[in-house]
């Protein structure tokens, strides 16, 4: 066994002692699956656990600390002031409501846009059109987040494209504000909604559709009673993205939102200008909490395995 395992390519590399060390290591690892697993897992788990989980836990802890208003230093002074402030203050209520409204609107807009194009891609178009559409939709939408937000800034601006398009019918661009933010966010997250719906639609067997129309159902009825129930998990999977991403966004809102405040911009303002990390941490617990509630609700539908 050992003589065979030191096959020619192994020997080329180095001195005999190194080769035998490698061979012994190989034999040892081959026999000890647990050691192999430990070697593979240690670095990634160390990294993700130390960097990420510890950071999330620390964020939770920091929310219960305070900041010295004079020096700006963070003080380890356990209290629930930040959390009660965030939960009790009318400002945070209004901003939370506005952010959740935006998230719901963005999700609905995206689902409405995604359904027809996903249907066409998955079930109607010929193979060539299907492939062309997949590329046509994926490529521009994977392009830079910032560039797309910037594009909407120039579209929505005064004398911009939207003003120019709406001028003949007497309309004008909504400008920078809540509406602009919703449209821009819907544009940004569209691929994340189209993809899961498209995947769910592809999994619907054609035979079911044929059977439905053989039995006399029209297109609308087939969609409502056959297709829709089957793709609900895909729709929910898409909505998790658009919902969660909207709750956490602050850059797009800064770019096209004008003075609109969302949870993200509040967090950012507290980290940057106000230099109050504990309060920012407490504010960031709101979107985190909402997402966990949302995930808990949709978990029962089985959509999580579709992500």
């Amino acid at each position, binding site marked *: 066994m050992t003589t065979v395992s030191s096959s020619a390519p192994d020997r080329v590399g180095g001195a005999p002692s190194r080769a035998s060390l490698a061979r012994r290591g190989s034999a040892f690892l081959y026999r000890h699956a647990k050691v192999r697993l430990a070697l593979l897992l240690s670095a990634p788990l160390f990294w993700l656990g130390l960097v990420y989980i510890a950071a999330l836990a620390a964020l939770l802890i920091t929310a219960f600390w305070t900041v010295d208003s004079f020096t700006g230093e*963070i003080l380890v002074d356990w209290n629930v002031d930040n959390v009660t402030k965030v939960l009790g203050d009318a400002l945070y209520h209004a901003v939370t409501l506005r952010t959740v409204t935006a998230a719901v609107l963005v999700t609905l807009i995206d689902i409405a846009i995604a359904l027809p194009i996903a249907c066409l891609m998955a079930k109607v178009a010929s193979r060539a059109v299907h492939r062309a559409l997949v590329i046509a939709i994926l490529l521009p939408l994977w392009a830079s987040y910032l560039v797309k937000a910037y594009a909407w800034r120039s579209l929505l601006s005064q004398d*911009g*494209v939207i003003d120019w398009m709406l001028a003949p019918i007497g309309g004008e661009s909504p400008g920078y504000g809540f509406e602009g933010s919703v449209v821009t966010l819907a*544009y940004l997250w569209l691929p994340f909604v189209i993809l899961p719906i498209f995947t769910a639609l592809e999994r619907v067997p054609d035979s079911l559709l044929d059977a439905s129309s053989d039995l006399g159902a029209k297109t609308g009825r087939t969609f409502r009673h056959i297709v829709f129930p089957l793709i609900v998990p895909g729709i929910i999977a898409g909505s998790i993205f658009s919902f969660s991403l909207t709750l956490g966004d602050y850059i797009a809102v800064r770019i096209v939102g004008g003075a609109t405040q969302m949870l993200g911009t509040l967090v950012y303002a507290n980290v940057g200008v106000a230099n109050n990390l504990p309060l920012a941490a407490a504010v960031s617990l709101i*979107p985190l909490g909402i997402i966990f509630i949302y995930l808990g609700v949709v978990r029962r539908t089985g959509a999580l395995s579709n992500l």
Partner: protein
Amino acid sequence: MRLSLPSKILLWGATALTLAFIYTPILVVVLNSFSTSKTLSWPPPGFTTEWWAKAFSNAGAMSAVTTSLIVALASTVIALLLGTALSFALHRFDFFGKSTVNLLVVLPIALPGIVTGIALNNAFRTMLDIQLGWFTIIVAHGTFCVVTVFNNVFARLRRVGTSLEEASSDLGAGIWTTFRLVTFPQIRSALFAGGLLSFALSFDEIIVTTFTAGSGVQTLPIYILENMFRPNQAPIVAVIAVVMILIAIVPIYIAQRLTSSDNR
């Protein structure tokens, strides 16, 4: 699917509108980068290549490009190492807490960017007392890039199975030889695709970046963000935006081609 004519027209019409919705903003940015108007008024009063020349001789923009390239390369290397090790561990072994580890990989990208950003910012600044800069930005990017490599390599491992490796070790090859001559060639293109996606992801990231970059390190997205609100910089920002579209799309196109040609 058999469709009635009206619903066919409706579907194609909706698709055409969606494509227009997707492409108009991008086309407008491309045209604006050649516009003679400094405020980007529409329609462009005239066309010029002045901004393209200015952008490429702009020291701030060029150093931001270099910074972004270095950060993206470093975090891709981290993602490749960690993501590959994780995908092997999760594919080849059954162990306690496996689904938790799986969740752990996805979490940095699934949670809102602002939560990841502020969590890392807080950990670096108040817990570890590390100055924000190159190190923190690369650590942050590496953390959320792991998932792209993991997804690609894991999917590949699942498809190719372990029979060839078993054959290799039955024929007497050790673990290293089998990896070098059998396993690695099988996952090479998945590594490449995952690496490209991770590179594009890092190159483009802005939310986590603003929380971990500090004031000393300026990546290209941060440069764009800062100059977007300045008067008279608009056309140069448009040029950089077009460059970013190209830099982000080309790797993703290649990655898609790679993975889809494997699937056939």
